[in-house]
């Protein structure tokens, strides 16, 4: 079954503030959703603004945690803990692609 070949791959970039509470939560929620809805088809890059503040600036990220969905298009930007899973699925386009 090569269904996964035709399915898109997700590329997320999550800006965090170390392991501050919200950042940590956001990361955890993102992971859970990916695992559930896009297993083996996702990539999460975590950028710590304490460590790489320039990147945050470059990406015009002014708040943490901020999630950027870089792929598949469209690019989306979400700030917050990503706790509202249902809404997130829609926003991130994960729902329709449950495998």
């Amino acid at each position, binding site marked *: 079954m090569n269904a996964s070949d035709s399915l898109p791959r997700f590329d997320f970039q999550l800006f965090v503030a170390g*392991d*501050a509470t919200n950042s940590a939560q956001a990361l955890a929620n993102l992971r859970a959703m990916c695992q559930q809805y896009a297993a083996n088809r996702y990539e999460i890059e975590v950028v710590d603004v304490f460590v790489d503040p320039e990147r945050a600036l470059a990406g015009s990220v002014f708040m943490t945690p901020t999630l950027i969905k870089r792929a598949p298009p469209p690019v989306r930007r979400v700030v*917050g803990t990503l706790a509202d899973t249902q809404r997130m699925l829609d926003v991130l386009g994960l729902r329709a692609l449950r495998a």
Partner: protein
Amino acid sequence: MSHSDAVPPAAETEISALIATLHATGQRLQQLTSGEVDTVADQYGHTFVLREAQVHLRHHEAAKQASILNALPASIALIDTRGVIVSVNEAWKHFSTGSAASAPGAGVGSNYLEICDRAEGSGAAEALRAARGVRAVLDGTEKSFSFQYACHSPTRQRWFLMTATPLADGHTSGAVVMHLDITERVEIAHALDQQRAELRVLVDLLPAMIWFKDTANRILRINQRAADAVGRTVADIEGRPCAEIYPGEAADYYADDRLVIDSGAAKRGIIETIRDPAGNSRCIQTDKVPYFNPDGQVAGIVVLSQDITESRLAEVRIRRLNRGYLVLSQINALIVGESDRARLFHEACRIAVETGEFRRAWIGLVDHATLTIVPAASAGRSSDGLQWAGESLLQRDDAAPGHGPGALAVHARQAIIINDVAGDPRTQNAGKYAEAGVRALVVLPVFVAGDVVAVFGLHAGDVDYFDAAEMDLLRELANDIGFAIDHIGKAERLSYLAYYDALTGLANRTLFLERAGQRLRSAAGAGHGVALVLIDLERFKSINDSLGQTAGNELLRQVATWLSASLQDATAVGRVDADHFVVMLPEADSPGDTARYLQKLIADFHDQAFPLEGAVFRIAARFGVALFPDDATDAENLFRKAESALKSAQASGSRHAFYTQQMTASVARRLSLENQLRQALDNDEFVLHYQPKMSAEGRVTSAEALIRWNDPRTGLTLPGQFISILEETGLIHDVGRWALRQAISDYQRWRDAATPAVRLAVNVSPLQLRNPDFVDEVRQLLNSSRNGAEGLELEITEGMIMADIDHSIASLQALRDMGVRVAIDDFGTGFSSLAYLARLPVDSLKIDRSFINDMTQSPQGLVLVSTMITLAHSLSLKVVAEGVENPEQSSLLRLLRCDEVQGNLYGEAVPRAIFEATYLAGAQQSATSVPTT
């Protein structure tokens, strides 16, 4: 509150205001972001951490840090760039090695570097080093620093690892200092090293070669011994492929490896022969055992090889020694049972070859007289070329010792060991030995009472066969052989003693009687008699008592010697008792011989003076005689009879006695007769009587002179009684001469007195005739008488003449040439050869009385006489008939024309005076004085 100068008081108000602003800002942001945001930033990148996140981060960070730090087993301190301890973990708080580097008791706020710098005492060096390293990390010179140090307590050895790593945040903002107790790790490492070292020692110590190989046949480990065996170092070999180190290995060697690896089962006991670096051949026994990794797979094989060359050699040696001991014990068993020297030697050699597996064993006896080694026995497989290496050994004196190991062994009086025949100059015939497969040999001298009496030689098929252990064994064997020879010699001496009298060396009773038996048998065959004489030395005991036993023994030895010399045969003498000897007299043709020997023996013994202790002794002895075959026919009985005779001699007081009384008497008589006869001639006891011989007409033509002896005791004795004695004693010559002289003298007297004389016929004994001087003697006698030859006739018996014809003819011829007449007496009783008869220079034949007697008894008798007369006449010989007793015979004889007759009819033999008166007076009247022919 008062602050440092850094904050002037005026600013304090502004600070408070700003804080209030910040606080309000923060609250507002919190609201704007629904509490889900941690940080915000402006387009310039200025980040502001919202309050909750701040708190969280602050706490969280610290907590995380602390828990991380506390979880670590190490003691950790965070220090800032100045060295001040900013935070520590729990372990640090309790940490103390006693070394300053661990900054015991130093807590947050202390300056670690300063503590280290100030360190004194035993840990000072470490502390300084630590400080130096930390500083390097802090100022960026080093990326990190670590070192190990030891800090031992009295009870324990401890090691520590100290590290310093920078706290970097773009630039070094501090460092993490860590001390970790690595004692356990160090101890383990030490233990491991120790074990490894022990293992190596053990592995190198083992008397074996060991390889650890992996499944690809690479040598992982090798011990020293194995490395030495190929002449390389351990380091050189470990890690290399096996084929590289052992290029010559056979294919099946690797097949073995493969088998072990594949099957996981060990292969043990592989035997092979290799050459070591020195080129010597070695025997190797190998075991190949797989070893397994933790998963149970075969990880490789352990190969263990042992050089069993020595143990093999030892085995061979032991087997050989065992063989040697077996030979020793078998030969010893042999020695106990064997009493024959030749058999002993042969058996000993055979045992040495069969049990001892020697190629050859031989024994030679040393003959010191001829200086040679005489082969006595040999056994073996090697060729005949070596059969008697002993034979060619000639041993000369010390100036030129003989060749060969045997001679050397005798000279040197010790074993000659040649362990490499091919290379030793002492071996002769080296080629022959090689042919026979003999590569080593030994010759041992055999001693008896300190002299080398024999040599014992052994050949072996291996070089260096005769090592120390073997030689010990062989020397023991030679000793045993020497003992056996001595023992047999002693036994032989004992058996000598069984037969010989030790003191005199004469045969003892047992041996003497044995010999006597043999002599009797041979005498019986020849028809001779033997006399056995037992001699008792009288008063020997008194000599013993007065002079002592030594003198007595010496006397006995002298008597023994004298007897042996006297009989000219030591084997005819024996000693049967302390003072009794026994002899066998030479075989006697006649009893007279025996008597004579005895007489001589007794007389000589009586006369013999034995020198003893400066004086001379004459020994009286008594003799007991027994005769074979008269008294007994076997030695034992003969001896007993002699004993009995001795007793009777002792009883009667005589010097000697025969067993048979008659013998004694007759011999005594005979002996006395002999003595008397010896004196008879001197005493003029002999006398001639004459018996007339008549012609056919009755005229006295001649007379036969017959000798008579006037025995003073018994009176006139006829010749039959004494002639034989005269002959035996040799007196016959003197008496015979006397008779001739007398007859010639009587005749001469008649001629001188011009009375009628007749020729006198004198009997001649064979002994006289045999005497070469006889003819000359007769001539001498005749020379002293003018008319001697005319009056002399010699009567010689027929048998005597025929016994030696040629001599007789010559003598007779010479006698006749002198004018003496010769008559053949007792004709017809001898064994005449008629041819010779014709040649004999004789004048007449006297027919024996037996024929005259038979003449009238039968026609043959008459014919015989008639024939004899005719024969005589035809040979121109006169005939005289003897023993005419009656007229009948007389008339017959006249008829037969016998020339002369003699006998009792005509007259007996009478003394001269009577003869003259009876026959010559009458003749004077009726006859001329001219003698008849």
